[in-house]
């Protein structure tokens, strides 16, 4: 294969490089590979690459062949120069790779002009899991237009211990530079310590507040795995030595660190039930920070009634759907989610419009501060974007608390409604990532996403509602109506080669 390929390259080698070639890492690369390698591609303009056929007559109007290596069998990534191709053919075929088998696969699959590539094929867009990222990212060469769904060190925000470390550091910096008032705006996460490293400070704090409840979470696991509550130090000492834990857990415990977090004992309850919020934030750049907030999201209810006396019943306390699903009386038909709109409507009915407005402002503050806390730590890369799933808990005074941030929020749908939400969310994510070049880059809203931060706060355009009041209104609409279809119709140019319907 290698030989064949070299032969092929040689035939094309004399062709001059296109002027649009602006990548940074590339060596000399012979042109000649057609953009779309996917054999399953249905696009008639997308001619399959004649890999083994060196006798194919070469046409002058072929787009330049580009790849990053002379060896096509290596896992090195080769991609096309989209702009060039678009200019030449006015239409595009985007090759994607998808490492997950759930809603995202459907979204990618059904997107006009997008084609899935096989295992080692070249891709323009990669929705990978974090494991793939860890193994491949550093060996990958990516061209300018290529996009991937994680930042290299996404865990700075999404691992519980690192998030707290970053937030604490950010708070300290703020206190030093902007004063105590400003720093106080970061007090949205419960008192947290990393174990075992901060065990001694933790014990000090623990003893200072006798009778309080703490929650222990493994830093790197998600979906509520390995979590338990405790009130006595003895409990965690027992847990440390607990021989009854499975071998697998024991092994992990060797390397696995935990965080001990002050448990929020007065959560806001709806009809006696605890819930948390799942909110989606999309970051397309860290420097400058550009973040979008999705209007939809949901509240996850605990299936059982909340009371602190039932501390052993972890189902009461954890609102993770993944945990709830294993509860003995869990009824999947019932579901235990409310759409964000529903919750907002409920809270407005109970507390009035202004209170809810203040609450959403405080929630915005959580997103922005937490992102700013890692802004300098995350390796900014224009190829990367990340969809975060924020878990927020409200207490009785309607103060929002940051529980954790997920880099790979569960995209598996638990019901039709949930599926629809996630489908919309992912579609809009792809709209913003904009592989098709349908946006101007100046949008403040794309579908259900509202631009929340663009190197500074973003405000709504002055509309009628702002007349008479000089204050600026934040551009976020969490839990508000998501009339994305209409907005998208007005906003987006049709897909390349598609007529507007």
């Amino acid at each position, binding site marked *: 294969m290698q030989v064949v390929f070299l032969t092929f390259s040689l035939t094309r080698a004399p062709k001059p490089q296109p002027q649009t070639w602006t990548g940074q890492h590339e060596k000399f690369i012979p042109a000649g590979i057609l953009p779309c390698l996917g054999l399953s591609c249905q696009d008639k303009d997308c001619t399959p690459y004649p890999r083994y056929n060196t006798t194919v007559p070469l046409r002058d109007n072929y787009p330049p062949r580009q790849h990053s290596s002379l060896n096509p069998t290596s896992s090195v990534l080769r991609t096309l120069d989209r702009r060039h191709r678009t200019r030449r053919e006015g239409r595009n075929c985007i090759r994607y790779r998808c490492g997950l088998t759930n809603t995202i696969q459907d979204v990618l699959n059904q997107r006009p002009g997008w084609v899935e590539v096989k295992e080692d094929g070249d891709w323009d867009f990669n929705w990978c899991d974090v494991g793939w990222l860890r193994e491949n990212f550093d060996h990958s060469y990516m061209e300018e237009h290529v996009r991937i769904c994680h930042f290299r060190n996404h865990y700075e925000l999404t691992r519980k211990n690192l998030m707290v470390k970053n937030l604490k550091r950010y708070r300290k910096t703020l206190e030093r530079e902007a004063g105590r008032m400003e720093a106080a705006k970061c007090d949205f996460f419960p008192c947290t310590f990393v174990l075992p490293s901060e065990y001694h400070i933790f014990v000090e704090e623990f003893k200072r507040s006798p009778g309080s409840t703490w929650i222990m979470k493994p830093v790197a696991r998600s979906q509520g795995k390995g979590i338990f509550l405790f009130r006595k130090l003895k409990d965690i000492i027992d847990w440390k030595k607990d021989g009854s834990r499975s071998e697998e857990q024991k092994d992990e415990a060797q390397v696995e660190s935990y965080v001990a977090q002050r448990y929020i004992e007065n959560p806001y309850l*709806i*009809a*006696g*039930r605890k819930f948390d919020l799942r909110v989606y934030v999309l970051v397309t750049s860290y420097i400058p920070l550009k973040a979008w907030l999705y209007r939809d999201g949901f509240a996850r*209810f605990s299936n*059982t*009634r909340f009371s602190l006396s039932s501390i052993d019943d972890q189902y009461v306390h954890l609102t993770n759907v993944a945990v709830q699903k294993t509860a003995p*009386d869990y009824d999947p*038909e*019932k*579901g*235990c*989610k*409310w759409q964000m*709109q*529903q919750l907002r*409507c*409920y809270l*407005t*009915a*109970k*507390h*009035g*419009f*202004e209170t809810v407005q203040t609450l959403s402002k405080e929630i915005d503050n959580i997103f922005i501060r937490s992102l700013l806390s890692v802004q300098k730590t995350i390796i900014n890369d224009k190829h990367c974007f990340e969809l975060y799933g924020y878990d927020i808990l409200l207490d009785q005074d309607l103060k929002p608390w940051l529980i954790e941030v997920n880099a790979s929020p569960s995209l598996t749908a638990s*019901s039709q*409604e949930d599926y629809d939400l996630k489908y919309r969310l992912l579609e809009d994510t792809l709209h913003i990532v904009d592989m098709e070049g349908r946006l101007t880059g100046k949008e403040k809203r794309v579908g259900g996403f509202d631009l929340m931060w663009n190197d500074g706060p973003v405000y*709504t355009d002055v*509309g*009628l*509602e702002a007349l008479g009041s000089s204050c600026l*209104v934040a551009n976020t*609409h969490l839990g*508000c*109506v998501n*009339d994305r*279809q*209409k*907005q998208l119709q007005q906003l987006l140019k049709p897909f390349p080669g598609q007529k507007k319907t």
Partner: protein
Amino acid sequence: MLDESAELSVSITQIVQRLKGTHLHSQLEKQAKECLHKPEIKLETLKDDVRRLLKASGWERKLQNAVYRELHILPPPGHPRAPPEHTKEPLAYMCKAQVNWEKRILKSLNSMCTELGIPLARKRPVPEQKELTNKWNEMGTDEPDLSKFRPVYAPKDFLEVLVGLRNPNNERSEDLTVRSHWGLIQVSLNVRNIPQMREMYPELGLTFGQLGIDDHTHVPPDLFESEHIHIGKKVVSEQDSAAAQQYSRQGCPTGLRAQLWSLILNTTNDPEDITHYEQLKARVIHHALLVDNLIYKDVKLTASNDDYYFVFEDYLYQVLLCFSRDTSVLEHFNYNSATPPKSCIQSKSGSEQSAVVYPPNGVIPFHGFSMYVAPLCFLYNEPSKLYSVFREMYIRYFFRLHSISSLPSGIVSLCLQFERLLQSHLPQLFYHLREIGAQPLRIAFKWIVRAFSGYLSTDQLLLLWDRILGYDSLEIVAVLAAAVFAFRAENLMEVTSLASAEAVLADLSTLKMKESHIGLELPEGALYSKDPYFVQAAFSPMNFSIMHDPRS
């Protein structure tokens, strides 16, 4: 016929009679007496001075609101020589149908009793009482075996009864109009046509601003909205039932709805109300009733399975169990065509004296009953408050949805109204559905019986109920049902069976009356032009005409 002044004086006497001896009455007396000690009261102008003081202290408003409430539930004065049953239902064949229906329900209840060997009522042993007291706030965690119980009836059964209604005077006449054969309802009642409705619902005209409804007014919607909220706050601070009701016609803002509704319904949350609720709770704890199982079953079947209402399961048990013990509900049978079922106390069975109303409130729950309560949980946190709002809603409106009567807001009229609207404005659609065996009422009946609870999304449902309260009429429910057909008309014209028509109309949760959040763009009314079956002019004064259906 009575002339107007005589009618008025009859009403006044009735109201005075009813208000005498109420808690409000004694409070007013007490206040008046206290006034006497004030220096500004002069003997010469005693009457006026006391009045002025009562007005200043807000007691006059409370009296006004109480009178206003009585006016709502007061049956229209009949002919002096008409027997009292006539206020319940003047048409004999309707009465008879209702009586027969009640017999059927009772029979079904009795046979369930015998079959399962469960008494209608029993005193709970002390340990059970204790357990229930502890569990009061989490009754939903109980998973009793209810497989043996079945709902006494479902809306479908009730529809069959309505379909079977015939006016004996018409039976032999040959000149039945063509139209009356079209629909399922075969009795002729006077229902409003569109021009009459325009008169009845002027505020729903397109030129009026509407909260929660896309409108074509000259005032931009968000300006209207902020102005409307401003007025709403004023209405709440004035504590005036009548003003609140008028206000509600254009929709209540989410943040003010709870206050406005309880103002319209004149429900308070005084210590007396709380005590009343606690008493009912004590009755639930002391005695178990067979209907409790029906309530449990219904909540489990409906609200607990609902995407929104599952959270409120516990509240629903609390409210519905208390409701079944509330004998003050019996009062509404004065103007309800239904009669509370009686049962005999076992020890003295047979003798007339020992007959008691069963269940104590006289209302046997049916499949879907709990959905009358569920949307209210969205508004009220305290069970006692939630309870009194629900009770008032029931005795004013909801009972009409499952009693056979000829009243304009009664279920028969609503069904007929629904059919007439479709027949006169979407005749092709009606004909098509009828031909394929999908009579529209077969699909719409369940919506109407529940006043759309559980079918529309909550925010939209509350906007609808705003109008029910605002106009003191359920007519709007029938109109909305017709509108739903109008909106899906295009798809419905293509279906060829009842099942597929049902599928087209299965999910109403995407229907929007309008998206009403401050600061967001409002949808355009572009949808009319797309819909060939939709006669905008015909429906234009009604609020549904400007409903927004993203699917169309």
